[in-house]
C-alpha cells in the first residue's frame, strides 16, 4: 500500500492543491495522512514517519507539501517502478547532483515533468527551475527537492529528519546524505507534479536562509566532501567566496536590467496600441462586450 502524508500550515492550500493530486493518484487501498504541522518541518515530517510506521503494509511513503499537486493518475505505478531496485531509498520528481551546499539547485538538476504554477504577473505556468537546463529523470542524485519525496519501506523504518536543524533549511539534504551514507540510492523519477506558488521567489526570507545555510554547512562539514582546511586555506576560501558573493549580487542586478530592457519595447507597443485612435474609438464596443460576458456569467 502506498501512503500519502502531508503536514499543513495552510489548510486551504492543502484543499486546493495537495488533496486533489492525492485523490487523483491514490489507489483504492491507499491511506492518506493529513495532519496539522507541528513545530519545524523536521518535527512535522518525523511525526508523519511515526504515524506511517504504525501501518503494517506500507510499500512507500509519499511526503508532500500542501502546495504540491500530483498531476498523474499513474503516479503509484511510477513510484513502484522507481523502487523496484531495493537499493533505492528515496525518490522524487526533482533532485540534483554535484551539490555543495543546501542551495542544491545550484548543482546539476535532474527533473521529471514538473511545472510551477504562479499567481503573480497575472498568473501562469512555467517549467520548474527553468532558469537553467535540467537533465531528465530518472537519474541518481545527491539530494531531492523536499517538496515531494517518496520514502521506501527501508527509509521509512531507518531514517529520521534532523530536528536539531533549528531553522529547518537543508532537511532534505541531510536525509538524502544519510540514505547515501548507508549505501542506498537517491533517485529522481518521472513523476508529473505542479508546484503552486504565489510569487516566483525561490526563497522567501533571505536573512533566515543565510543563517540556516551557515548552520547546515557547519553541521554537514565532512559529509559533503569538504576537506578540513588549515587557516591559510580558509582565508583563500573566504576571499573567493566574498568575491563570488559580490559577483552574484551584480548578476542579479544585471538580470533585472535585462528584464527592463526586454520588456520596454513590448510595453511601448502595448501603450501605442491602447493609446491609438482606433482603440479609443472602439472602446464602447469592448465595454459592451465585457458587459455581455458578465451577464452571461451571472446567468450561469
Amino acid at each position: 500500500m502506498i501512503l500519502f502524508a502531508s503536514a499543513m500550515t495552510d489548510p486551504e492550500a492543502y484543499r486546493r492543491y495537495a488533496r486533489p493530486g492525492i485523490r487523483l493518484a491514490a489507489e483504492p487501498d491507499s491511506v492518506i495522512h493529513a495532519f496539522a504541522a507541528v513545530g519545524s518541518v523536521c518535527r512535522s515530517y518525523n511525526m508523519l514517519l511515526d504515524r506511517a510506521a504504525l501501518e503494517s503494509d506500507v510499500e512507500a511513503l509519499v511526503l508532500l507539501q500542501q502546495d504540491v499537486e500530483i498531476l498523474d493518475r499513474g503516479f503509484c505505478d511510477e513510484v513502484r517502478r522507481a523502487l523496484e531496485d531495493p537499493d533505492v531509498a528515496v525518490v522524487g520528481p526533482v533532485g540534483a547532483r554535484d551539490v555543495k551546499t543546501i542551495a542544491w539547485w545550484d548543482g546539476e538538476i535532474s527533473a521529471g515533468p514538473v511545472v510551477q504554477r504562479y499567481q503573480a504577473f497575472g498568473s501562469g505556468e512555467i517549467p520548474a527551475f527553468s532558469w537553467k537546463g535540467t537533465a531528465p529523470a530518472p537519474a541518481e542524485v545527491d539530494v531531492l527537492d523536499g517538496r515531494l519525496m517518496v520514502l521506501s519501506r527501508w527509509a521509512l523504518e531507518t531514517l529520521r529528519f534532523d530536528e536539531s536543524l533549528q531553522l529547518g533549511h537543508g532537511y532534505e539534504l541531510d536525509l538524502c546524505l544519510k540514505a547515501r551514507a548507508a549505501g542506498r540510492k537517491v533517485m529522481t523519477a518521472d513523476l508529473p507534479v505542479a508546484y503552486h506558488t504565489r510569487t516566483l521567489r525561490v526563497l522567501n526570507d533571505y536573512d533566515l536562509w543565510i543563517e540556516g545555510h551557515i548552520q547546515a554547512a557547519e553541521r554537514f562539514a565532512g559529509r559533503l566532501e569538504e576537506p578540513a582546511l588549515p587557516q591559510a586555506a580558509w582565508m583563500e576560501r573566504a576571499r573567493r567566496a566574498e568575491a563570488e558573493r559580490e559577483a552574484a549580487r551584480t548578476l542579479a542586478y544585471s538580470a533585472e536590467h535585462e528584464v527592463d530592457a526586454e520588456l520596454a519595447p513590448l510595453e511601448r507597443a502595448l501603450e501605442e496600441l491602447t493609446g491609438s485612435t482606433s482603440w479609443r474609438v472602439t472602446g464602447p464596443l469592448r465595454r459592451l462586450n465585457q458587459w455581455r460576458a458578465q451577464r452571461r456569467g451571472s446567468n450561469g
Partner: protein
Amino acid sequence: MIAFASSVTKPDVYARCAKVGIERAAEPGSEVIAAEATGPISRSYNALLDRFAGRDELEALVLLHQDTEIVDPDFCARVRDALEDPQVGVAGCVGAIDVRSIAWWEGSVTLSSFANRYEEHGGGDLPGFSWAWSEAPPYAQVGEVDTVDGFLLVLPPWTVGNVRFDEELSHFHGYDLDFCLQVREAGRKVVTADLRALHHRGIEMLPDLDSWIDAHVRIAEKWDGRMPGVGQAPGSWEERARRAEAERDAARTIAHTKRLERQARLRQVERALAEARGSISWRLTAPLRRLRRL
C-alpha cells in the same frame, strides 16, 4: 588646457561614442589623444599619464573609455569647478561611499549621473538615479566619495604627475578603485562632480566573471590593512568563508528569481498584446489603420 585621452581597442566604437562626446565638450585648445591600447587598461592609461605629466599648460586630463560619450557642452567649465579645491585628486560622474571592494556599487552610491545606452532588444537607455536632477532621490549629491567609476576620470596635474595605475592587478577590473585608493592614501580627495555621460555598453554587468572575481581577490589582498574596510569583514577566516558562501548562494537565488520573473512578466505583456490585437474591435478598425498608413 583640458586634455582628453582614450585607450582604444575598437576604433569604430571610439568614433561612435567617445569621439562624439569629446567634440561636443572640447575647447579650441584642448588636446585629444586616441591611443591604441597596449595590454591592460592600466598600462595604456599609464602611457597616457606619462605623456601629459609635467606639462605646464595642463589643467586637467580627462580619461574616458572608448564607449563613453560626454553629453555636456559646458563640460570643461564643470571640470574646472570640480577641481577648484586643490586637494581634489580625482573627479568622476558616478561614485560611492563606504566602498569595501571592487563592487563599489554595493556601497552607498551618492551620484550616478550616467545612462547605460544598450543595443539589445531594439536599444534603449537605463539612466542612473541622478541622470536628471529633477528626478534624483534626496541622497543624490556631489562631493567626496571613496571611489568613482573608471569609465570617466578627471585628473588634475598633481595626480597625472604622481599616481600610476597598478599594472599587476588585472587586465581591466578594479583599476579604478585601486587608483582612487592610491589617491586617498596620498592624502588627496576623490570627488563626484556635476558631469554627465552616456556609457554605450551591453546590459550584462559582468561579462567576464572569472577575471572580475580574480581582481576582487587581488584588490582585497592588496588593500587589507591599508585602507579601513577594504578587504575586511568581522569574524575568523572560517566564519567569513561560511557567511560569504551563504550570502553568495542567496544572491544567486535572487538572480534565479529575477530570471523567473522575467519569463512571467514577458508572458504577461505578450498575452495582453495578443489579446488586444486579436480583439474584434482591433480587427474591425484594421482598414482604418491601413488607410492612415497610405
